[in-house]
């Protein structure tokens, strides 16, 4: 019907080969460059436009224009990267390194030093000469 003990070759191989797993806590895992771990912000180029907040599928990002803050609840973030696609200034990026589990959810907040440009002074309209 079938071969008898065809697995024995693999068994012998297993005995004399390195383990397939790593010694995890002692040898930390190395992530590839593209790993989507967490969202990072370059606060100097952020213009507080709020595109990331409006596009975020789980609603994890909050942008406060008045208080000049950008915040993310990393426990709600699904690392989809849609905010990085939508950001007009490309100041958001996804980098390796996952959010560590914790006893309670917290919000990561960044103060953005953005100064909105002052509205340009109205061009002086020539007054009709009174003659």
């Amino acid at each position, binding site marked *: 019907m079938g*071969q008898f003990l065809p697995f024995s070759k*693999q068994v012998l191989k297993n005995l004399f080969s390195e383990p397939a797993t790593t010694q995890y806590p002692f040898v930390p895992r190395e992530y590839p460059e*593209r*790993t989507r771990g967490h969202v990072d912000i370059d606060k100097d180029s952020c213009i507080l436009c709020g595109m990331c907040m409006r596009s975020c*599928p789980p609603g994890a990002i909050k942008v406060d224009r008045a208080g000049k803050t950008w915040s993310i609840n990393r426990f709600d973030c699904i690392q989809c990267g849609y905010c990085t696609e939508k950001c007009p200034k490309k100041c958001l990026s996804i980098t390796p390194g996952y959010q560590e589990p914790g006893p309670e959810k917290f919000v990561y907040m960044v103060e953005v030093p953005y100064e909105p440009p002052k509205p340009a002074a109205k061009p002086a309209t020539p007054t009709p000469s009174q003659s």
Partner: protein
Amino acid sequence: MGNRSVVPFGPQHPVLPEPVHLDLVLEDEKVLAAIPSIGFVHRGLESLTSKKDFNEMVYVAERICGICSFMHGMSYCMALEDIMNVEVPRRADYLRTIWGEMSRLHSHLLWLGLLADGFGFESLFMHSWRLREKILDMFEASTGGRVIFSVNTIGGVLKDMPADMLKDFVRQLDEMEKEIRETTAIFLDDYTVKSRLVDIGIISGEDAIRRGAVGPMMRASGINVDMRKNGYGAYNDIDFEVITSNKCDSYARCEVRIGEIFQSIDIIRQCVAKIPDTEINTKVTGMPNGESIIRVEQPRGEAFYHVRANGTKFLDRFRVRTPTFANIPALAQTLQGCQYSDVPLLVLTIDPCISCTER
């Protein structure tokens, strides 16, 4: 006549982490009938279309399944591209095909592991998953995710694979192919494995058609059905034969899936050799208005997508029929007349994904 009784199977059962319930009508140890019922993990993902716009829905569609996540995202994007008359760049088609076949590889290796676990061959289970792990690493290196890839977008893909990465993947797959051949040979030749699979759970081709089976379940009954032959993505440029078997039993389903593992590796090689150097996505503007039906071949079988849009950013209707849902009637047929001890194994042979089924 023996004693008749009804024994519940699931929704919690050691062989499956997912909840499916079967009422098994037994006569002594023989199953006379199996009545399936589902609905334990319904998440209402389809109705999220009323809350998330059609671009955000790409990420929701991906989360329908943890194994075919790439294919779900891809089929959703294909449906929207069809509605919005977007021509996807050829390179994006090829990249989607490569990632799609990698999904098939890791899904089939996962299934082989679960099957081995189902009949109690623990070390074979671990070897299958050891091989699968390498595919997941390749996914992480190319897309940034191991389970959810988030690389599909309406109009193409978001990430490119440079030529050296593609070459490295082919080299890794060449190395893996030898190891996979050694491991899968045990599934096909071992006496104990065969004693659990051969002539168990027979479903004829005629019955499979009548019950609407899809995917490897159908092909293992000798029916040549494969949606990839419809030529979506890059499949019309790829040379491949649909793998079928005429044995109609559980062993045939195992054989077909093992054949597809090697076929996927071959398709990836062909894609890497032929991939054109074009853009990877086109800019899509405007709102979708219209209706589309997409059928793709997922690792578990044919998935059917129906999307209807009404010219606003929220879709009217989003409906998915996943392969497991189509295979449940065929499963009920295979269970008729089997031994009670074979039920867990037969449930596994359709490669059930209940979260997909209930969405």
